[in-house]
């Protein structure tokens, strides 16, 4: 299967702090990849490097066969990479619908009715349609998380990066989120999902990678990875801290 995303030896550091240390992995078209790792392991930084918020010090990132290592965040967005943030960051002064429209018009490049149609469909899917005219700054945490997903989907991504989108949700909310993400995945969108809520991750992804200190320390079939000693150690550690 063709690769949609390929990282080759991607490194990034801030002074003595290394957030990515020779990261290499590929993502096949239509694949869903889960990312595990302790806090501060460089998972979110990896997303920042893929979306262009951070520029790699060295290494190469390619998207659909094209080298995007030096490409601006705006162009990567228009090329089909979208993400959600762990801490939701809506345009607080704009309505929910306008937030969605920014992604649909600027990132997906749609206009007029077509853009509005997409936003309405996505808002319906993410259960935000009833809040469409509310100011995004006044939303509850759950709805802000839904808006993150909405905006990412309105960009019509071919690669969707989800950053701890299930964190802080109730069991019922989590179940409906999993269903939504499964249907997005079924529609052909490739997904990379960073998540600490392991059961949610396991319900969707086909492969897992584990990151620590900016390095990939394990990769493979989800169940096998979860049972590996590296992961046991990291996650038992997290459990003990929590």
């Amino acid at each position, binding site marked *: 299967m063709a690769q949609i995303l390929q990282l080759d030896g991607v490194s990034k550091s801030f002074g003595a702090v290394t957030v990515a240390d020779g990261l290499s992995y590929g993502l096949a078209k239509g694949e869903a990849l889960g990312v595990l790792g302790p806090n501060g392991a460089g998972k979110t930084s990896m997303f920042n490097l893929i979306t262009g*918020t951070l520029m790699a010090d060295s290494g190469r990132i390619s998207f659909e066969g094209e080298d995007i290592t030096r490409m601006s965040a*705006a162009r990567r967005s228009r090329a089909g990479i*979208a993400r959600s943030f762990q801490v939701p960051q809506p345009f607080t*002064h704009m309505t929910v619908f306008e937030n969605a429209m920014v992604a649909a018009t*600027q990132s997906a490049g749609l206009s007029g009715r077509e853009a509005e149609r997409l936003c309405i469909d996505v808002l319906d899917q993410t259960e935000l349609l009833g809040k469409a005219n509310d100011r995004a700054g006044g939303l509850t945490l759950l709805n802000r998380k839904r808006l993150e997903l909405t905006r990412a989907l309105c960009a019509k991504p071919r690669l969707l990066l989800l950053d701890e989108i299930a964190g802080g949700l109730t069991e019922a909310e989590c179940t409906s989120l999993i269903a939504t993400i499964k249907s997005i995945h079924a529609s052909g969108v490739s997904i990379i999902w960073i998540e600490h809520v392991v059961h949610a991750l396991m319900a969707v992804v086909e492969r897992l990678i584990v990151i620590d200190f900016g390095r990939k320390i394990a990769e493979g079939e989800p169940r096998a990875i979860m049972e590996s000693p590296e992961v046991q150690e990291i996650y038992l550690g997290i459990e003990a801290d929590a």
Partner: protein
Amino acid sequence: MDFLNAVVQGTLLGGLYALFAAGLSLIFGVMRLVNIAHGDLIVLAAYLGLTTTVVLGVHPLVALIVVVPAMAGIGYVLQRGVLNHTLGDDILPPLLVTFGLSVIIQNALLEGYSADPQKMDAGVLETASVALGPLSLGLLPLLTFAIAVAVIAGLQWTFYRTPLGRAFRATSDNQDIAQLMGLNKRHVFGLAMALALAVTAVAGILLGIRTSFDPSVGGGRLIFGFEAVIIGGLGNLWGTLVGGVILGVAQTLGATINPGWQLLAGHIAFLVILAVRPNGLFPRISG
């Protein structure tokens, strides 16, 4: 009667001040840039208008067809070439750079046009008036006010009803996220400055028809613009119009008491409002 006349004339004058202020308000709203050179850009537009009327032999209002796109072009290039590089977490660099720009524009105009006061000839428009009951209203002030209302309505519509306006507001709200939504902020800022200077072009031409101008008058226009923006409340375009009107009325009322009090009365009105309502009369709801 004098009082009523002063209020009406001041209101119409306020339209011009609102035009001075609209560009400032727009730029500050979108990119948090305080443009010290704004007044000089108004004067630059007036001189471009003067040159256009002289060279092409057209009416100053017709010169708008040339000056508006010219100023918009200057705005885009200025933003992409210079001002974008000054924007960041620190607000000092853009202040210093636009201050420098102000000095450069003033001196370039002095070099090019000398210090002699100039004026644009708008023919009968300058003296024509319409009678409204006991009042006689100049056609030019009426036209200026109507243009100001139209410009503010147009900007408001652009901001809240068009994809470009959404791009402005999204970038103003969160630059980093806007980039991730496919918006190139350098380009968006360029467009915002282009739009602001297009409005400035209108303000400059109307200023040049109304009064004589020379390269040094930019500073005063900048102050009126700032005062109108702050009285109305930052980021509120209709508030800016109200701010301009309050300033205009205060000035004409001051002038009816004593001609020397015109400017002083405007500044006092500004200071009083600032003391009572530090965020202006209609601050944008923040969240």
